[in-house]
């Protein structure tokens, strides 16, 4: 990793050059919510003026640029009785500007799940290799809990990461591509003052977190509390809409569907993102549902998010961005569910119904 310092004005010139020459996505205000605060999303950008560098957090995560909601995996062409499968792993270079550390951590987790396992996914690999990530740090929102998940800083998974140190940006350069681009712009080596400012900035971020979740031994607590009445209680609130999985930066479960073209000369196989809270997630042929109750499915989601696949030695996949908590229509928040599971008093009171007695 190489460190440089760049003035904010020069940085905007750099981003502008990059954005104008490539297919780029950055945070843009798309709406205002009921309280009048802006809603941001990662949207295509053509120039640096369109990017809201001071955005708080986007409503959806950046994962859709790598794992689209719908993606055509392969096509079948029919010739008489025979058919032929056509598959291509192609992706165009994309620049992602302004990803937060938690978003980049989520990409690292997706890399781990989709690439460093049996059967690496070539579709994701093609997109990931052609993605240029510019990360930016930010002051946490009141409900961010990425510090508890240890994802408030990130050291890998980006091409360039900038920390705001007042007049300048402190750049961490993690790829030769980014280094070569920056040669064209005015940068300087960081001096002692810059380093001090960076440390101060990190401390400020560290101390600005208002929400914390105690995740000590959470995998084993989840295991022990498998039959806890807490799940049924929160399950009664859950609407099974699947919104949490759609906005989550690290949820990747999907379903495959195949359909014929209207001219019947071909067919296509499509992958669409799915949510484990949807009713038919675990229904097998014949109609048996392995997770029939709301609570079972909600529990499963928390298992995946916060326990990871412990048996397989995998990590927890939650990064603590709290997008699911903000998006949930019935107000289910990971903080409350986990604290309730830990039998913390204040969270037991938040839910409408009281916790059933523990036997």
């Amino acid at each position: 990793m190489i460190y440089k310092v760049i003035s904010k004005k020069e940085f905007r010139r750099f981003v502008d050059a990059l954005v104008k020459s490539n297919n780029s996505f950055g945070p843009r205000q798309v709406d205002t919510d009921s309280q009048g605060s802006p809603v941001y999303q990662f949207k295509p950008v053509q120039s640096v003026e369109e990017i809201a560098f001071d955005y708080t957090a986007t409503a959806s995560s950046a994962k859709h640029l790598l794992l689209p909601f719908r993606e055509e995996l392969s096509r079948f062409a029919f010739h008489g009785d025979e058919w032929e499968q056509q598959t291509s792993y192609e992706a165009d270079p994309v620049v992602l500007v302004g990803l937060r550390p938690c978003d980049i951590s989520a990409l690292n987790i997706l890399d781990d799940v989709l690439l460093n396992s049996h059967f690496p996914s070539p579709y994701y690999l093609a997109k990931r290799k052609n993605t240029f990530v510019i990360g930016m740090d930010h002051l946490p929102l009141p409900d961010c809990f990425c510090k508890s998940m240890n994802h408030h800083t990130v050291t890998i998974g980006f091409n360039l990461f900038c920390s705001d140190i007042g007049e300048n940006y402190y750049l961490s350069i993690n790829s030769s591509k980014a280094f070569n681009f920056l040669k064209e712009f005015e940068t300087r080596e960081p001096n002692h003052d810059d380093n001090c400012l960076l440390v101060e900035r990190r401390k400020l971020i560290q101390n600005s977190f208002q929400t914390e979740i105690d995740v000590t031994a959470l995998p084993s607590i989840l295991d022990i509390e498998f039959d806890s009445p807490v799940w049924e209680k929160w399950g009664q609130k859950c609407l099974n809409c699947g919104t949490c999985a759609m906005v989550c930066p690290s949820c990747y479960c999907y379903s495959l569907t195949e359909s014929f073209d209207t001219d019947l000369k071909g067919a296509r196989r499509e992958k669409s993102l799915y949510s484990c809270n949807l009713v038919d997630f675990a229904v097998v042929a014949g109609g048996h549902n392995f997770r029939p109750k709301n609570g079972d499915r909600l529990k499963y989601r928390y298992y995946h998010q916060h326990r990871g696949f412990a048996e397989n030695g995998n990590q927890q996949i939650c990064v603590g961005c709290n997008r699911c908590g903000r998006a949930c229509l019935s107000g289910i928040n990971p903080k409350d569910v986990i604290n309730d599971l830990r039998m913390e008093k204040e969270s037991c009171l938040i839910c409408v119904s009281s916790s059933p007695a523990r036997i």
Partner: protein
Amino acid sequence: MPDMRFVIPRQDINCEDFASSAPDFNRRSEMMNTDRGFRCRITNIVQLTELEKLFQIRIVDPAERKLFRFKPGQFLMLELPGYGDVPISISSSSTNHEFLELCIRKAGHVTSALFTVEEGAYVAIRGPFGSSFPMDEMAGHNILLIAGGLGIAPLRAPLFWINEHRDRFLDVNLLYGAKEPSQLLFTWQFEEWEMINHIRLHTIVEHDDAAWRGKTGMITDLFNDISVDVKKSYAIVCGPPIMFKFVCGYLDKLGIPMNRMFVSLERRMHCGMGKCCRCMVGSTFTCIDGPVFDYWSVMNLKEAI
């Protein structure tokens, strides 16, 4: 006009080493074409019962046919273009490299379409996926095979293995239960198994009819007919979810060690490669760590049975 100095060069992953190297089918993780199947031709279709058919398929490309190897207990994804792909356990002998047999029940979207297909049609298979029964570890022991309904289909591969290496195993008992006599599968092989391979076959049905001369009741009733030497026995169980509870519970009480009882689980699957997470049991993939689990793992997995 884009400034060419800042255009990010496109990377083509098809050029990477692991993509261009020859496919090694024992380490399919190194293969790129994970969602491209082997083209197969349906060479024979046998109607077993009203709802079940036995499909015999043959991989078209001789080189691919030679490379396709599986172990008893593994499954494959059967692809019917335009309809989808379904996980199907392999019911034929693992030493038979000429064709594969798949016992399929008409239950969903893809299998219903498959039932309208005729001999000579082309399908594709991906795989083989999943874990297998440890046949070498079981050698030198008594084997207890317990199947309920369609559960006989995944057990047919280990059964073939046992028959082909009969001298390696001691007593082999097959307990097989079904709802009605007409739903018993592979009845034409019963005599062969009993007479030639010396497998003690015990069948039972839940609801008998006029022609039925065997036993009537639940599969657990068959345990009275056999004596199990718990120190020298391995058990393989496959059937509907409710059956596991009773049968494994009984065997556990009997004293068969948990790591000598194997079950083959069924879950919804979309990819077969540990990516879609649809087949998750607790926190384990049925497609990668399963479908064959020992009972100890199953006990550790919440909501497995």
